[in-house]
């Protein structure tokens, strides 16, 4: 079976899902079977990112992950959602929160294509890089 590009699979998956929202379970099973068949199950994470990207391109729905050193408050999440709506022109923004103590402080916002790294860790690394030079 000829290998189809991951991006194309994501594009078709989102398009079909939009046309037939009730067939979601069947579509998911078909996609899983295809990945097993072509022995590409390890590409699942990247495929999901491609699907998120396609959701933004086709529907204007933006999935964002915000990572903070301590659990983010609802106010922070709302502020990030508002920022992303303005910056990207997305119709809706869905924010998922994650914590990573190694950030020390600040926030990292990741969308399928872009990133805003305003963490303390990055700033410290930046300073360290400058000193080492």
């Amino acid at each position: 079976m000829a290998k189809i590009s991951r991006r194309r699979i994501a594009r078709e998956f989102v398009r079909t899902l939009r046309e037939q929202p009730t067939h979601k379970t069947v579509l998911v099973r078909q996609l899983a079977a295809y990945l097993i068949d072509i022995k590409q199950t390890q590409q699942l994470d990247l495929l999901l990112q491609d699907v998120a990207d396609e959701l933004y391109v086709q529907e204007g729905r933006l999935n964002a992950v915000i990572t903070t050193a301590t659990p983010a408050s609802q106010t922070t999440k709302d502020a990030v959602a508002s920022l992303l709506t303005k910056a990207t022109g997305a119709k809706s923004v869905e924010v998922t929160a994650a914590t990573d103590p190694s950030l020390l402080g600040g926030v990292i916002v990741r969308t399928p294509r872009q990133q805003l790294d305003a963490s303390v860790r990055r700033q410290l690394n930046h300073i360290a890089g400058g000193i080492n030079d």
Partner: protein
Amino acid sequence: MISVKELSTELQAAIGQLKSEQGLEETGIVTRVGDGVAWVYGLTNAGFNEVLQIETPGGKTVEAFALNLMEDEIGAVLLGGDSQVRAGARVKLKGNVLTVPVGPELLGRVVDPLGNPLDGKGPIKAKQQGLVEKAAPGIIDRKTVGEPMMTGIMAIDTMVPIGRGQRELIIGDRQTGKTAIAVDTMINQARQKSGVVNVYVAVGQKLSKISRLVERLKEEGVMDQTIVVATSPADPASLLYLAPYAGTAMAEYFRDNKGHALIIYDDLTKHAVAYRQMSLLLRRPPGREAYPGDVFYLHSRLLERSAKMSDANGGGSLTALPIIETQAGDISAYVPTNVISITDGQIFLETNLFYQGIRPAISVGLSVSRVGGAAQTKAVKSVSGRLKLDLARFRELAAFTQFSTDLDAETKGRIERGERLVELLKQPQYSPMSVWEQVATLLPAINGVFDAVPVNKINDAVHAMLADLWTDHKDDMKVLSKGDKPSEDTTTLIMDVAKKVAKGFVANA
């Protein structure tokens, strides 16, 4: 009224401001890394040859350039070691393609293909940057090759002359004196004060060899007008691949600013091998000798940048002397045939000649210059026609009569003349000859003045004649060096001195 200068300053400032603004940046992720190649997910807006910045755990960035733009991922070649790059690392677009510092500040320096100094003389404060990959000048921007690029090597300047803006290939097996010809040409530019800037690009050459070469160039006083772009076999293939393009960008600065530059690519065989390594690691389909399909384009786009510019464009020039190493004299291999067809002629060096003591070991039959004839000085042209004819006859007769001992006087005479001409064309390294020396050497020789001098004494005789001419007739010789066809008086003068000197050597024989 809009001032372009003001507009340029404002635009530069605006670009700088935008670049420094922190905000949402397009990022990708390294999915795999190894053998100097990183595979990147994301960065769908990356352009071909665009520079990527990969974050490392230490807070520094490693640069790479995008060569494979595929639907799902980007294949990028790392410009540094891959030990710092990890899978999962974030990747950003730098926003520009590869550039290197260019300008007169680079003269006398030894740099790597990214323009970083390797000579310990501190940072290079170049005011301009040049594109590593740049389109060659178009038809309208060019002019026919018409000015000589004297190598100082008599065999080349007379029989395979090179013009400014020409691409002349130096091809031969290992240890046949390819680099020696290139180095002598660089030395000659300084000795003759031609104003030509030299750019020597070492592609995967041993560092000991580069070090020796730089020392020699310093001794000869050539380094001040030379840029050395050095890569060693220990460098990543990406740097070996970039070196010729980076060197060309540096040389183009002089070409485009009414100057003249000479670039030596030593050698393009190693360059093709480095590109083959990169291509195979990028999973591009291998073709003949495992080279990728675009190995011709690899060299054609490089050498097309050497050109003689039109007067409207300043009249500058960039002359290229690419070097190709053959295996057992096989010029029909893939890369040699490609570069032979791209260039405007080739100087073919033979191992047999080299070990017979004929150095430079130029094969007169296989060497050719397709455009240089128009650029040859009238002085040299006045002797080169007869020389080529005499040598061609000699080669034909020498092959025909090697089994025969009984020869008529005319045949014998031609063979003896040929033997003397071959002896005269031998030239030690680092001893380039000026125009007057070449003309004064060959004029009496092709007219038979030295026919009676024994072959083993002919070089001594010529040296004595040149010394006499320089001591007693310096002004005439200086006029001859300007390149005009020698006048009747000058010709008679040279012939008289030669006859006098030759007589002494015949008597001493």
